[in-house]
């Protein structure tokens, strides 16, 4: 594909997408309204999408709201990230059985579904790319992630509006999906019109598109999409100044501001659970009553727990101060040394879902401002 081809799929033709993915054996997951939020879950058809819904997000605030139109993707980020499918919250690693007194390690019968992800935002695409680096591109691969990631079909949806806690534009990850998708859509609702501008990312994506009624996009339609994305980029709810961010954090391990954050932080770990790039896990061992079966489970873990850094004699990070500092510094600084990229994509989830509305963009600003005073 030398030049990006853009097509138009009318809203009326959109349901055909489900059939096309279904016949290819995909388990379709995407946004749907449940328990007062737009979450990612299995979708049976277009009616499961959050038609006409949006979300209002701010520090510590998430609210579902009705839209004036019938947009399919008229919201921003879900409290869930796609990592719950690619990197399951709990998964069995090992199963051993004692037979005639001798332990035998059983074959792991891990046969994950082939997922089609519907409605992946640009920030979340970037997050998946970051987790690819963590799980697939080091010396050791995580086979559980690999088995789910490799076959996954990705339909990205560009953001036609920015959320209250979004700052992808600052992180250079959005609002437009630029790579890593099979198909990318921009949803356009205007007057009587409702259609999707479609960009094809892969051969596989082109095949799926071919099963939907579509036509070449006009220059005017393309310009309209451009304008929408430009506007989205200009209306980010948050901003983060990333200049020399790594150095700023490396030089401020002992900054007094960490105490101020620590005084508010509950160490509840919400931020790490909702973050699409956080990857830490722990192991749990279980046995059945007979003691003849032993299993090891891998579960999501958080650097905010006391146990996380426990070594004989006591935890290394005793204080909330040390734990918040670890989290933020990892996201924005040490991650860069570890994986060659920031660990934050600017999705804003950690701001929205923090019960006390701690906002990393504000914390960085506070560090920076007092830094300047100090340096002046």
């Amino acid at each position, binding site marked *: 594909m030398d030049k990006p081809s853009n097509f138009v799929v009318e809203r009326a033709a959109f349901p055909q997408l489900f059939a096309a993915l279904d016949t290819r054996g995909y388990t379709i997951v995407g946004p749907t309204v449940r328990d007062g939020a737009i979450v990612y879950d299995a979708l049976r058809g277009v009616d499961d999408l959050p038609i006409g819904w949006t979300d209002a997000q701010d520090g510590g605030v998430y609210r579902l709201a009705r839209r004036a139109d019938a947009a399919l993707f008229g919201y921003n980020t879900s409290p869930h990230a796609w990592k719950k499918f690619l990197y399951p919250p709990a998964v069995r690693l090992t199963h051993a059985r004692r037979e005639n007194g001798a*332990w035998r390690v059983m074959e792991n019968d891990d046969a994950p579904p082939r997922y089609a992800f519907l409605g992946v935002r640009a920030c979340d695409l970037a997050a998946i790319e970051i987790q690819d680096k963590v799980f697939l591109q080091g010396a050791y691969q995580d086979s559980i992630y690999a088995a789910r990631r490799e076959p996954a079909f990705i339909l990205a949806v560009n953001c036609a509006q920015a959320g209250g806690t979004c700052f992808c534009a600052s992180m250079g990850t959005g609002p437009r999906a630029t790579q890593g998708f099979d198909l990318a859509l921009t949803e356009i609702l205007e007057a009587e019109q409702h259609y999707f501008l479609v960009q094809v990312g892969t051969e596989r994506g082109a095949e799926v598109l071919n099963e939907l009624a579509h036509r070449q996009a006009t220059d005017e339609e393309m310009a309209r999409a451009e304008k929408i994305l430009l506007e989205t980029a200009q209306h980010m709810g948050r901003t983060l100044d990333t200049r020399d961010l790594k150095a700023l954090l490396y030089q401020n391990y002992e900054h007094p501001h960490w105490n101020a954050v620590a005084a508010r932080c509950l160490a509840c770990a919400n931020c790490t659970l909702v973050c699409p790039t956080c990857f830490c896990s722990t192991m749990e061992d279980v046995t059945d009553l007979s003691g003849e079966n032993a299993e090891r489970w891998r579960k999501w873990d958080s650097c905010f727990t006391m146990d996380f850094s426990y070594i004989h004699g006591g935890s290394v990070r005793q204080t909330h101060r040390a734990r918040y500092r670890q989290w933020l510094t990892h996201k924005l600084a040490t991650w860069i040394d*570890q994986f060659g990229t920031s660990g934050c994509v600017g999705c804003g989830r950690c701001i929205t879902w923090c019960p006390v509305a701690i906002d990393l963009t504000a914390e960085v600003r506070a560090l920076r401002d007092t830094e300047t005073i100090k340096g002046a």
Partner: protein
Amino acid sequence: MLSTLDSFPARADAHPMQPRLYRAHKRHRETPDTFTLELEAAQDDAPFTFAPGQFNMLYVFGVGEVPISICGDPKRSNLLLHTTRDVGMVTHALSRIKRGDVIGVRGPFGTGWDVERAVTRDVLIVAGGIGLAPLRPVLYSILAQRERFGHVSLLYGARMPEELLYMPELQKWRARLDLDVAVTVDRGTRHWRGDVGVVTTLIPKAACDPARTTAFVCGPEVMMRFTIFELQKRGVSDENIVLSMERNMKCGIGLCGHCQWGPHFICRQGPVFRYNEIRDWFALKEI
């Protein structure tokens, strides 16, 4: 500059989270709370090769898995040796392993001491308590090719005489003319006729030319802190002070995030580091 993960040697191991089965050949007590397990492969008899300083994840079925350094002779690849202190749930379960019992082993993981880099140089091995275990393979390697090194000393400290590991071996090493062995305890007992004091007090007296000395250090973090200080006082350069770090570890292969220490994953870039690489992090608390 820190290397990115891509520059680490890739391993062919397709299932690094799957333990291989090992059978206890022998368990013997070293001190009241420390024991050595000798393990042999129960699944296949592929030789186990490792570099001094590397560790394994030892898994007691249904109980848990912990990182333990490999403390045997790298040349004897049929037996896997681990000296462990019984401090908690998993290490206690390990302490009850009997001859013939099977445990899971993953590894070897992490970086080694890189004994080869010390060739032609004087060597100071400074160990505190259980810290002698990961350093013993260094001694085996050096003694197997003794003529390639300069002056070699082992400085070993423990809290009490009964907490000294590998007593019979220490006696043998002590009798050698090509190895200085100095042993000290924090608190002596009636029968103790050796040095009393912390291990760092042995450093000023150790025979070596600081400008061409490599020091291998392992022990509790405070002990390493004071050891570094004493070594620097003698003029050993930071680059030639090599130490082994310890953090909580759940995977050993850079995936679980637990062992992070600033930008480092101790299971991958470590556990063995040169002091110049980690100086800044070593100075900070609660990292």
